[in-house]
Structure formats: C-alpha cells, structure tokens
C-alpha cells in the first residue's frame, strides 16, 4: 500500500484535539453551564475545522493511497506501532464523525437531557469523538482495537445516565454485547498476527501476509472477526441490543450511535476482515449476504409492528445496515462503493430521524405513534423535515438514501469471485421487496404522525392554550403539567444543527458522484487486491 506523508501532523491533531477540550473542561466548575457548553462546542468546532482543512489538503487524485501517513513505534515489545493514515474509504467517515459530534453538541445547547450535568455530558461526547475519529485513521490492528473500544464506556454512561426509563438495562446490554464481540475479535486479531508471522500489526503487512494463510484457518479467523464486527453493525441475529440502546439513549446518544458507532462495524469489514482474509471473506460472503437480507426483511417487519417512533427508527437501522452488508458481501467494486455510500447516507438520514424524534419527544413528551397526529398542522416545519427524512430513508431517488440502496440491489445481480449467482439473485429480489416494506413502514409512520388533525390530547396547544382549554376529564392525564406549554416549531438551535445534514441529504442525493469519486479509487484497489489472491 502506497503512502503519502505530507502534512502528517494533521490526523494526530484532528483526533486528539478533543482531549485538550476534556482537560480544560475538567477544571471548570460544574455550575458554569454556559461556559462548559461553549467550550465543548468550540472544541468540537475546532476539531471539525482541522478535519475540513484535512479534506482540502487531501489529494483526491490519489485517494487510493494512505495520506498524512505516520508510522511511529508505540509498543515495541508487542510490535504494535502508532500507524495512522487516511484514504478515500476512511476520509468521509472521519469527517462524518466530526460533523455529527459538532452538530450534536450544538443541539445540546438548549436540549440538555433531563439528568443535567452538561460538564460530564460534554466530556463524554468529546471522548467519544476521539474514539470514533481514531478508529477511522488507525492503520494498526492494536491501535484500531484501542480506539474501537474507547467508545464503549462513554456510550455506556451516556445511555445509562441520561437515557430513558429502562436505561440501566439497555446500557448494560449494549456494553456486554459489544464486549463479547470484541473479546473474540481480539483473539482473532492475535491469531491472524501469529498465523501470518507478520513483522507488525500494521494493516499493510497483514493484508500482504494474510492471503497466504491456509483457507480453513482463514475461515476460523474470519469467524472471530465476524462476530466482533457483526455485533457492532449490528447484523441479524446479533442486533437485539440495538433497539433497546436506541430507544433508551438520549437523542444525542441515538444520533451518535446511529450515525457513527454502527459504522465502526461495517468499516471493520471493509478495512480489516475482507482485505486481510480474502479466502475467509469469500467463504463467509454467502452467510453474510443471507443474514443481511434476513436483517432487511426482519427489520422492516419489526418496524411495521412498532408503536414507538424511536423504536421504529431503530429497527429501520437494522434494515438499512442489512443493505450495507449485502453490498459488502458481493465483494464487487460496485457493491462496496454503494455500501460505503449507504453508510454515510444512513448516518445523515437516520441521525436526522433521531433528531426529529428527539424534537417530537421534547414537545409532546411522548413518542407513541397513536398519540401523535397532525404534526404538519401543529409544527409544520418539523413535520416537513420529518417528511423529507422519511422519504430519504425509504430510498427516494434524488435523495441520499437512494444511492445506498439501489446500487446495492443491482450489485447483488453479479456477485464477484464466483460467488453463487442464483443465491445472490434470489437475495436481490428479496432485498428489493425490502425496499417496498421500507416505503410501507416509513410512509405509514409519516401518515399516522404528520397527517390529519392533532389528537384530542394535544389539540389546541399551538394557540395560547391556557387553563381554559383543558377539559376537566383530562385532569388525571399524566402529561397534564405540560398542557400549558406552547408548542414551538423548529427552534434556531435546531435549525443550526440540522441544516447541514438536510443540505447534505439533498446535495449528495442529486449529485452522488461527489462521494463516489472519493471512495472509488480505494475500493478499486481493494477489490483488485482481492482478485490477486482469489484468482491468481
């Protein structure tokens, strides 16, 4: 793998800058909430600025090469180095993590979850950011593993402290599932290292040496990695932590989880499991594809059965990640490109959907679909945004979601490297049915929540509904206390936090080439290298 080392301080600064913010925040008294929030946002903004600068310095003409490459000795005895670099596959994800963290922090400005304590909350978000960005730049298995695990604890606390009613159960479930996956993954990493007899844990060496391992051994090692990454994605049948975690997490946690944390798993497949173990990948591809399609259909059916808006969006993530995994499992340039696009698009769209769900919850104090109705009449702008995101999520052409789904389905028609065509074509048909189901559950969700008149419970809240509007028989209503509140449409903070995502959904939907252009060289090289070892 060729590397470019100009400006190689950029990635280190971009990744660890949030730690500076953490150190500063630790010494600020808890009471200074405005100052804490400002500092958090400034740190995330500065990090994003470094990220954007990185993007301008990135040589798109050589996107297949690792740029800003650093390789310094870290733990000599175990032959692990501080090796970092960025190529076309990781650049968009690296930037996505920075953008999302920044926007989530802005959103938190006046949407602090009920448990309070912005100091701890902002510190955790900054720590998460370090882990997420680090995972995308790591070019050494051990370094990757450290960053991969670094996100665990902050997210555990974010769900467990600031989450909903079942937060303790959900956070522990999230933690143990992921831990289980990564423990086996670590065993697989070590097995890979010793089986190849590589000089170091660097990706480049392992990719070169991995293909030489005996096929059966590759299959076993791939199994270990598969469990680790599949739990994170999450793929059916390892997905059960996801609905709980998403539903219970605070809005900020859900957005970060959906937009970035899930991508760590799919990224792991593309970056580590498949290139390092080509034979293993080929043997596992049908299994992955079948599980992916089961995930698509199962996720969609679960969505149809949900009564809670947030839970529905969570299950839709299972379905969408199914498309991503199907694309990866085809082992074709086309499929992997589409899968990568799907990862980014899902990050924007589902992130936005969770934002909207959070906004609805904030206003109505419920997410139960049957109690919500007529968003378009009460909070029209929010209603329209929900509409746009739902359309994008179901894969309407012209919006970003389309480019993560349609090409994946197409790519399954012609899987690479002699994978069974009948199987993949059958899966293609089933996956296509999945898009129909997706349209069904999203449109149905939209119809039930946005159309029609507001339910009796919330009727009349846009107008100045003081005291008199409340019927006596509502006296025992749990949410009575909130009845006097005036419903507000999208606030300024929300506009600031959401507009970049909405613009991205539309722009990249209309002109996806902007993104494919970045991925493609790196993906081409990846598939070419697969070809060398699979068809010698």
């Amino acid at each position, binding site marked *: 793998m060729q590397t470019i080392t100009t400006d190689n301080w950029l990635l280190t600064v971009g990744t660890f800058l949030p730690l500076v913010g953490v150190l500063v925040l630790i010494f600020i008294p808890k009471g200074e909430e405005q100052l804490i929030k400002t500092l958090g946002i400034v740190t995330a903004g500065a990090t994003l600025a470094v990220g954007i600068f990185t993007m301008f310095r990135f040589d798109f003409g050589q996107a297949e090469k690792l740029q800003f490459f650093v390789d310094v000795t870290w733990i000599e005895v*175990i032959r692990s180095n501080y090796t970092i670099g960025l190529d076309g596959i990781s650049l968009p994800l690296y930037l996505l993590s920075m953008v999302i963290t920044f926007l989530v922090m802005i959103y938190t400005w006046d949407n602090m979850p009920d448990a309070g304590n912005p100091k*701890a909350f902002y510190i955790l978000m900054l720590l998460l950011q370090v882990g997420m960005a680090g995972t995308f730049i790591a070019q050494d298995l051990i370094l990757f593993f*450290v960053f991969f695990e670094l996100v665990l604890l902050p997210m555990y606390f974010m769900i467990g402290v600031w989450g909903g009613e079942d937060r303790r159960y959900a*956070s522990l479930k999230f933690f143990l599932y992921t831990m289980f996956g990564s*423990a086996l993954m670590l065993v697989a990493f*070590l097995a890979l290292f010793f089986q190849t007899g590589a000089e170091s844990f660097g990706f480049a060496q392992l990719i070169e040496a991995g293909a030489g391992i005996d096929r059966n051994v590759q299959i076993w090692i791939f199994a270990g990695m598969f469990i680790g990454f599949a739990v994170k994605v999450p793929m059916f049948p390892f997905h059960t932590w996801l609905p709980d975690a998403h539903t219970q997490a605070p809005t900020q946690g859900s957005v970060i989880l959906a937009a970035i944390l899930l991508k760590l798993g799919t990224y792991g497949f593309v970056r580590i499991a498949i290139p390092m173990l080509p034979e293993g990948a080929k043997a596992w591809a049908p299994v992955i594809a079948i599980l992916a399609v089961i995930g698509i259909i199962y996720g969609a059916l679960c969505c149809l059965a949900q009564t809670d808006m947030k839970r529905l969006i969570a299950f839709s993530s299972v379905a969408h990640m199914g498309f991503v995994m199907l694309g990866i499992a085809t082992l074709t340039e086309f499929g992997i490109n589409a899968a990568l696009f799907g990862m980014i698009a899902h990050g924007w769209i589902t992130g936005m959907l969770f934002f909207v769900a959070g906004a609805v919850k904030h206003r109505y104090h419920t997410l139960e679909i049957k109690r919500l109705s007529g968003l378009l009449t009460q909070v029209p702008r929010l209603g329209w945004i929900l509409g746009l995101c739902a359309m994008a999520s179901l894969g309407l052409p012209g919006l970003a979601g389309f480019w993560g789904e349609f090409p994946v389905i197409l790519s399954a028609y012609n899987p690479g490297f002699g994978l069974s065509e009948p199987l993949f074509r059958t899966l293609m048909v089933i996956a296509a049915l999945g898009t129909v189901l997706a349209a069904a559950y999203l449109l149905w969700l939209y119809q039930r929540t946005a159309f029609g008149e507001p339910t009796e419970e919330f009727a009349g809240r846009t107008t100045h509904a003081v005291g008199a509007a409340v019927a006596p028989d509502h006296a025992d209503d749990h949410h009575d206390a909130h009845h006097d509140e005036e419903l507000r449409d999208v606030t300024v903070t929300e506009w600031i936090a959401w507009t970049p995502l909405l613009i991205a959904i539309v722009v990249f939907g209309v002109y996806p080439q902007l993104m494919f252009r970045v991925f493609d060289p790196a993906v081409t090289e990846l598939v070419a290298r697969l070809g060398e070892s699979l068809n010698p």
Partner: protein
Amino acid sequence: MIAAIVAQLGEWTAPVIDWHALAPELILVVGINLVLFIDLNIGEARKWAMATLTGFVLLAAFVPVVTLAVIGDASREMFDGRYVVDHYALILKAIFLLVAYVVVLMSQNELEEGGYYQGEFYVLMLCSVLGMVMMASSRDLVSIFVALELLSIPAYMMAAWRKRDVRSNEAGVKYYLLGVFASAVLLYGMSFLYGTTGSTKLVEIGEVLASGDLIAMQVVAIAFVIAGLAFKVSAVPFHSWAPDTYEGAPTPVTAFFSVASKAAGFVALMSLIFLAFPTATGVYQPLIWVLAVLTMTVGNVMALRQTNIVRMLAYSSVSQGGFILMPLAVAGTGDASQSAVRAVIVYLLIYAFMNLGAFAVVIAVSRKTRSGEITSFGGLFGYAPGMAAVMTIFMASLAGIPPLGGWIAKFNVFKTVIDAGSGAAYALAVIAAVNTVIAAAYYMRVLRQVWMMPAPDGDITPLATPAPVTAALGITAIGTLVLGVLPGLVLRFGDLQDLTGALGR
C-alpha cells in the same frame, strides 16, 4: 558425634556475600527491628509515626533495588546459585515494595481510627514483605519454602487484626488452617522432588528431570507442589478461604493479600516451572490449564452473585488469578515460553495498581457510608465526581477496557496463549474471552451504582478522604492510566532470559 561436627567445621568456609545485592533484604531487617524498638518506646499519642517510618523503610529498601537495576547487567549469584539477584528478581522486588508502600498509605487512617495496634501491624507487614522480597530471589526449594512461610505467618495474624470482630477472627483462623495445610502439601511434594532428584536446587532438579522419563513419584511431586502453591494464589478449587478471609480482614490487609501474597505465590510457581520443571510440560501444562479455566470461570460466576463489594473484589481477584495462570498453562509450548514470564510479570504489576486502587476507593467511600454493600456506592458520581472517575478507571481497567492498564495485561496474556498455537491454547483463549465478558458484567454493575443510582440514604455530603488515601489513589490511578497508554514502560521487564539465561539454560 560432636567430634564429627567439629571435624567438619574445619572444612567450612564462609560463603561470599554480595552486600549490595542483599541490601534490600538487609534494610528491611533493620527496619523491622527499628519499627519494633521505636514502637515500644513511644507514647500512644505518637504511634501514627510508625506508618511514616514504615513508609521510609520501604522507600529505603527501594533504593538498592534501583541502583542494582541501573548497574547490574549480569545477575548476582550467592550461596551456590541458590539465591540470585537478577532482573527478574529486581522487578518483582520493586513490585512488592511498591505494593507494600501503597498499602501503608491505605492502612494509616484505618488503623489509627480503629484503635488497632499500629506498631505491631507494621512490623508484621514488613516481615511479610521481607518474605516476598526473598521469594523473588529464591532458587532453591528450601529458600522458597522459608520465604513462603515468612510471608504467610505474619499474614495469618494480619487477617485476624480486628480481634474483637468475630468475622476477622474467622478470617484469620480459616486462612491459617488452610494455609498450613497447603504448606504441608507443598512440603510433601518438595520432599518427593528432593528424594527423586537428590537436590534442592531448582536448576539441578530441572537437569535431573530433563535427563530421562519422569517416574511416577516425580509426577506426584510436581502435582503436589503446584497444588500447594495453588492455595497461595487462591486458584479454584483451592480458593475457598479467599472470600471469607478477604471479607473478614481489615480492608487494607485484604488489599495486601489480594495483590502481594498472591503475587508471591505466582513468583514461586514461575521459578519452579521455568527452572525446575521446564521439561515436564506434559505434567504441569494440563494441570495449570484446568486450574486456569476453573479459576477464572468459577471466580467470575461467584463474583456475579455478590452484593458486598469486598466479597465481589475477592472473587474478582480469584478470577484475575485465573488469567494470570493462563500463560503458565502454555509455558512450554512453542514460542509462548518466551513471552510467558513477561505476560505474568506485567499482569502482576498492572493488577497491583488497579486492584489496590479499587480497594483504596472502597476504603475512602466506606469511611463515609459505613457499609460494604455495592449499593452503598449509589450517587457517588453526584457527590464525589472525582472519586467516581477514579473508580471508573479501576473498574474499567479490571474489566480490560483499553486504553487502561488492565487491557494491556490481558492483551499480553492472550498474545502469549495464542502464540503457543496449539488447540488447547486456542480453546483456553476463547474460554478466557468469554470470561472477560462475564467479568465486565459485575465490574459494570459497580459503575452502574456509581453513575446511575441515587445515594441509598440520600446522604450527599462530600467525601472526606484522608491525604494518605488520596496519595494511594493518585499513585494507582496514574499507574493504571499511564501503563495503558505507554505499556512500553514495563513491557521491557521480564524477558525469559532474565530468569533462565543467567543460569546457562
């Protein structure tokens, strides 16, 4: 008969003594007498000075360890190679002295406020540390046994230190009876070893065992020696004393047992395996494999059910012992033998930091809550965020989450085991991986209390942590963090050659 002895006296020549190499032990001996003497001659009001004095003795003993490490490139052998000061011994001595120092920091207020016998306590503790420091250098069955008894017998008394507390008495008696029993088993095995090989020197035993097939008595001997030491490291099924002793003993003493005594047991085990039994892989490997699997699994499953924090930490320490045993289970297979010593030593060092830290938090918090229940940690994040943060560091480190020290310890162990590459090794690695997850469940349960639950009695006055405990927390927390990010600092220690190379093996 006397005439015969007198006749032999003529042939006796004084052994060459390397005073520099023996300096840590000698300083400790002087220190023990000093503490004892001063304690007898000062008034009750000034007994607090004993802790300070003990701390200084330990630091003083640390100085020659450092100078030896800086100067010494070759190992220093004494008494015909039966007492050796090499890199392996030095790093272990450093660990023991460091642990003892932190334990002194943790004990000071506990003893003062409990009105315990401070002077005697520190004397006994120094004796025990002396035994440990000797253990690191012992290369002979006799000196190993002497060191073991020297470190154990004061420990029996320390366990029963709260003499008006029935549970503390129970702790002491249980520890004593089972400990003595274990010593007997160990001694029995050693006698067989001596009988069949004709030597008490580990290296010579190793040579005889390597020269031919093992006879049945030698197999029994190895099994007995390992079983006897398994008591010391509280490996399942020889662990039953640990939870009761740990719960009953004063908390700083428990911390001392769970880290230092256990480490000493592992040191003896390592010296024996690598010097005396290196060729008997067929005997000790399966034995330790089973011990490791049982220890980590049973320890974890029992820890899951505990509601008392000290009992939970006791079982957690049993389970961590299983992880430390892992590399020894493959110590004779392929490349793993090279890294097994390092894996154990690094684990012992990092484990010392994080486990002592966890106990220090327990001491600090229970000073306020007067309770040992895990639920008493509720609300800590609210009223003592700093303490909550360090507890998070220790628990997450014990669970093995990067980038904290515990992770690098576990990683090394896994690396060694997978390096062995045999089927049994892979099976062990997978079992250990599953165990890591089980362990995470109970460590996270503590963190759940700390972060997510309200204070059980609604009492949210801040903690008043005494300065020595704060110092102990600082040392352990920084150690845990730094070793996780820069493990290279300690990973240089514990090369196999440090132990065996000097002896020409």
